[in-house]
């Protein structure tokens, strides 16, 4: 089984792809059957992934030498592309995580989407998404990865716009696609550069060739440019500043989608890509700094927005942006291990919280404002308590999963700072402050929604088992998922690392700081939003610092800026060009046609319609020609062909 799974890892993405085709062409009229097909496929993928994980994580040879096999996709002289499978601990971990989360979320969706007229279609999209994401993860080639990358983008577009009757969903879908498209443009340029300079997009070959970049005739500057261009893709996909704007709007999609795509899997594709190409980034310190600062800034930036948002999914979305910033930061300081670790734990607790939020929305009939909730934990104990677990995990309270990964990131950032990067201290400060803010805004949400006074107009009820079951599984994983990477027994770091594995001494001081930040955040939220039942203090604060509050609530007006740019620059430019096209370019064409027409109008009077006039003219012309031929000088006769 294990050997079979390793050899046939391509089945993992293929099965959901087949499920997609099957639902679209065969089972669409039968919703229950469609969801069964979809779940069966993703569950099989999960089983296969587990077998692969078993095979990989029992054989340390995979750390140094990934299992790669591929076949020719297309090619020509000087440009051949292979598609294939690349199994190493990182991709195996991702395979396992994605298929696991996807399976849970599909089970959850059978409850959440119950009765939706587009039920089958929803599951076909989920299958397509799972196929693309799993395909992205195991890609052995950057072009293949880009293909899958775009396909997950397509699924994201389709799923965000899933509620087609909503204008807002349509706009959000377009925005998501456009924003990530801008990122893809940069990434495409990066890929082109790589292909042209190194003659391949194969990850294994690139790993060997990139360090010897000078032999390929390019300077460090150009390599930096390549890396930064490549990084624009992840900026778009992983919602980093300044292309983060689509992610919060993406919450227009059904909640399982938000959990699957916009929290646990797709958005981490960017992080994964940078992780995959870290061999390139590691060559160029300049690019690494860009990655680190983008990550740290995004983390802080999104956290400051999250503290004032009101909609439950929007808060979670900004928290996702912020956490993705953490992962980027970890990559920027050179630690694949910490980044992937956070990716791993984040997938569980964020999926958990999104599903919990979905459960709440389901119960409250899509009333999303946290200020309209309250005391939900009494009526919805499973949702509530699992949500609390998620909150503890993201706030970084030991022994929950988030603590270990966040601590690891803080540790590597500190290490980066102490190894001669003065700016590292700034990064560390930003990360630490974000940790505090995260705990605060998360618990603000939890206190507002689940504790405090119940609102009489709400009639919440616990969700059915197929929604509760994934919550419980994810809650368990959010609790214990981090224990494989504790500083005392860092199995994680042994397997997943770039360069030398990180063997830091457990930094107790750092841990204490981290715990302190988390507790402080929760404590502040407790004071403001739980003890103060009338919430007088926060209201006063918001009024006193009105400008700050507004800037944060309106997300620093980045959306408005983009909107202005699209409307006033791009669209206006398009209108100007169109005017130019129909009045100048076409004007010339029509002008030429007009000349023909006008001259025709004038000349037509020569046509009398009398045959005999024509005959006379004809005869006279013949006469003139004859005379010229007979009596003209030989050279001028030459033009008439009688030159001989």
């Amino acid at each position: 089984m294990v050997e079979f799974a390793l050899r046939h890892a391509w089945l993992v993405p293929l099965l959901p792809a087949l499920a997609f085709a099957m639902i679209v062409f065969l089972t669409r009229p039968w919703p229950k059957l469609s969801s069964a097909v979809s779940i069966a496929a993703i569950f099989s993928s999960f089983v296969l992934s587990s077998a692969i994980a078993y095979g990989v994580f029992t054989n340390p040879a995979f750390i140094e030498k990934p299992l790669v096999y591929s076949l020719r996709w297309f090619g020509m002289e000087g440009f051949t592309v292979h598609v294939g499978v690349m199994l190493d601990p990182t991709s195996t971990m991702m395979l396992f995580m994605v298929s696991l989360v996807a399976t849970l979320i599909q089970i959850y969706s059978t409850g959440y989407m119950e009765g939706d007229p587009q039920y089958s279609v929803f599951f076909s999209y989920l299958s397509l998404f799972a196929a693309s994401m799993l395909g992205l993860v195991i890609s052995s080639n950057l072009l293949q990865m880009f293909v899958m990358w775009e396909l997950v983008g397509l699924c994201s577009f389709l799923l965000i716009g899933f509620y087609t009757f909503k204008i807002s969903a349509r706009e959000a879908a377009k925005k998501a696609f456009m924003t990530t498209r801008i990122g893809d443009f940069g990434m495409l340029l990066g890929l082109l550069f790589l292909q042209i300079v190194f003659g391949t997009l194969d990850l294994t070959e690139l790993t060997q060739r990139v360090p010897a970049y000078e032999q390929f005739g390019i300077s460090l500057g150009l390599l930096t440019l390549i890396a930064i261009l490549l990084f624009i893709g992840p900026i778009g996909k992983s919602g980093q500043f300044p292309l983060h704007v689509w992610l919060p709007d993406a919450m227009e999609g059904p909640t399982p989608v938000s959990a699957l795509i916009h929290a646990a899997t797709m958005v981490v594709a960017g992080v994964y890509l940078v992780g995959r190409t870290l061999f390139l980034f590691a060559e160029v310190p300049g690019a690494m700094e860009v990655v680190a600062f983008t990550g740290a800034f995004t983390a802080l930036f999104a956290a400051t927005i999250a503290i004032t948002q009101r909609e439950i999914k929007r808060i979670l979305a900004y928290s996702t942006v912020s956490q993705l910033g953490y992962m980027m930061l970890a990559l920027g300081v050179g630690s694949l291990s910490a980044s992937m670790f956070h990716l791993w734990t984040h997938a569980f607790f964020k999926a958990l919280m999104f599903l919990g939020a979905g459960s709440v929305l389901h119960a409250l009939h899509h009333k999303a404002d946290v200020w309209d909730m309250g005391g939900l934990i009494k009526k919805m104990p499973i949702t509530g308590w699992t949500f609390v677990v998620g909150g503890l995990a993201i706030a970084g309270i030991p022994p929950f999963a988030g603590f270990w990964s966040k601590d690891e990131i803080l540790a590597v950032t500190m290490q980066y700072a102490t190894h001669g990067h003065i700016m590292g201290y700034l990064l560390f400060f930003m990360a630490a402050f974000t940790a505090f803010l995260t705990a605060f805004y998360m618990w603000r949400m939890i206190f507002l929604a689940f504790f405090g006074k119940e609102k009489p107009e709400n009639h919440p009820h616990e969700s059915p088992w197929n929604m509760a079951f994934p919550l419980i599984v994810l809650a368990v994983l959010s609790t214990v998922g981090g224990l494989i990477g504790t500083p005392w027994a860092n199995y994680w770091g042994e397997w997943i690392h770039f360069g030398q594995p990180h063997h830091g001494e457990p930094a107790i001081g750092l841990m204490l700081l981290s715990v302190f930040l988390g507790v402080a955040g929760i404590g502040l939220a407790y004071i403001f939003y739980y003890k103060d039942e009338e919430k007088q203090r926060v209201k006063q604060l918001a009024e006193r610092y009105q400008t700050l509050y507004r800037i944060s609530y309106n997300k620093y007006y980045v959306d408005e800026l983009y909107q202005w740019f699209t409307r006033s620059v791009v669209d206006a430019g398009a209108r100007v060009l169109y005017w130019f096209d129909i009045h100048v370019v076409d004007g010339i064409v029509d002008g030429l046609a007009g000349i023909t027409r006008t001259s025709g109008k004038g000349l037509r009077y020569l046509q009398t319609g009398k045959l005999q006039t024509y005959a006379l003219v004809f005869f006279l012309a013949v006469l003139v020609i004859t005379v010229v031929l007979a009596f003209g000088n030989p050279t001028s006769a030459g033009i008439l062909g009688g030159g001989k």
Partner: protein
Amino acid sequence: MNIPVLTLTLLAPIIAALIIVFIPKEEEKLCKWVAALGTGVALALSLYVYFGYDQSVGGLQWVDFGRPVPLIRDLGVSYYMAVDGLSLPMLLLTNLIGFAAVFASWNVSHRAKELMIYLLVLIAGVMGTFIAQDLFIFLLFYEVVVIPIYIMVIIWGSSKRVTKEYAGMKLTIYLLIGSAFLLVGVIATFVESVAITGTPNMSFEGLARVAFPEEFQIYMFGLMLLGFGSLLSMWPFHSWSPDGYAGAPTAVSMIHAGVLKKIGGYGLIRVAIFVMPLGAKFWAPWIAVLGVIGVAYAAMGALAQKDLKYVVGYSSVSHMGYVLLGVASLGVIGVNGAVANMFAHGVMAALFFSMIGFIYEKTHTRWIPDLGGLSHQAPRLSVGFMMAAMASLGLPGLISFIPEFTIFVESFRVFGWLAVLAIAGIIITALYVLRAGANTLFGPAREEYNHVRDIRGPELVPLVVLGGVLVLGGILPSLLFDMVNSGVAPIMAHIQEALQIGGR
């Protein structure tokens, strides 16, 4: 190979047209079925040829009657029908789209018989240009194409921003002006070749072997570039394209945008570059510049449009810019990409126009602000529309991504930052395509379109055929690329050789 398969392929639609002539005009359905059968046979034959072509051998194969049959000895004209990796995709494309176009016109009831006849003649004409290996025959077929187009636009077209008469005339005159420039170039080339070699020969191969003087090549290439370029809607000779497509009936838009335009690109490679390599080298940077301008300019133009057909009309100008860019790179990779992109764009544009045709037929409008939420009433139509839209913005997994990427690889290498402007076109493309697609299909359902019936039965054929190719070509690009490469590689090898001799 004693059976002249290519000639049979060419004859299939002509025979169908002749049969339809004898069918009473009341028997509309019968006319359409005969037309479908004729194009279907042609499609089957071209598939047979496509998969029977031996790529490992390459070169011209399936030569009808085993050799060029002399027609006019004094002019060196011969009936020389054969295909290589360059012609075959175009032949297949023609028949794919021709077949789909018949079904896209399934609901036309106004003079259906005549429409089918013209359509079949048009398809045969286009096909002829791609399989003729003789310059004279090539031009002959090219002229055959012009006449049905004009008549079809005038009779079955629609007047929107411009009248259909204006659109038809613009289309026809551009086609004719292009062919006029071409004719001058061709005659001069022929005369010069006779002067150099002493024996008249009109076949592409024969002409390519003649070593024309460099200056002559530059002038002639310029003429041919004007001719083929205006056919390919090269900026600034593009303005016929949006107006023409908007005015034309669905089938004409499909064939015109799908394949007829590609005669320009095909001719540019097969005639202009192949015969005039030194001229090509001189003009390549200009082609690239015009291509890039075309990409960006037309993409912006499309952004300003509100009429669906205008959006696609401008977008096709923009996509042809990529083709020009690929051709201008004069490298195997770039030209491969250009040819593959012609194929990809053909399929995509035809699907796009057929879906717009259905939308127009069912809602009587193409004005984007008046449309919306159609996915509620017509889900299958929406799938087709969305597939075409996604292919248009170069979504990987559909046929057009790999060709575009290939073009980018080569042109970025050759032209550097100039190409970046063209690559940036993918952002604007995404913007206008998404706007058109999402605003038409998504959003709340509109009551006035509740009567709209989704496409079904024969109406599904364009979606199934073209959509299938769209996906298949995206998943297995080697199906297309290996074929294209087997045709392009020898041509480019010949050109490199010529350039080296000429460069000395």
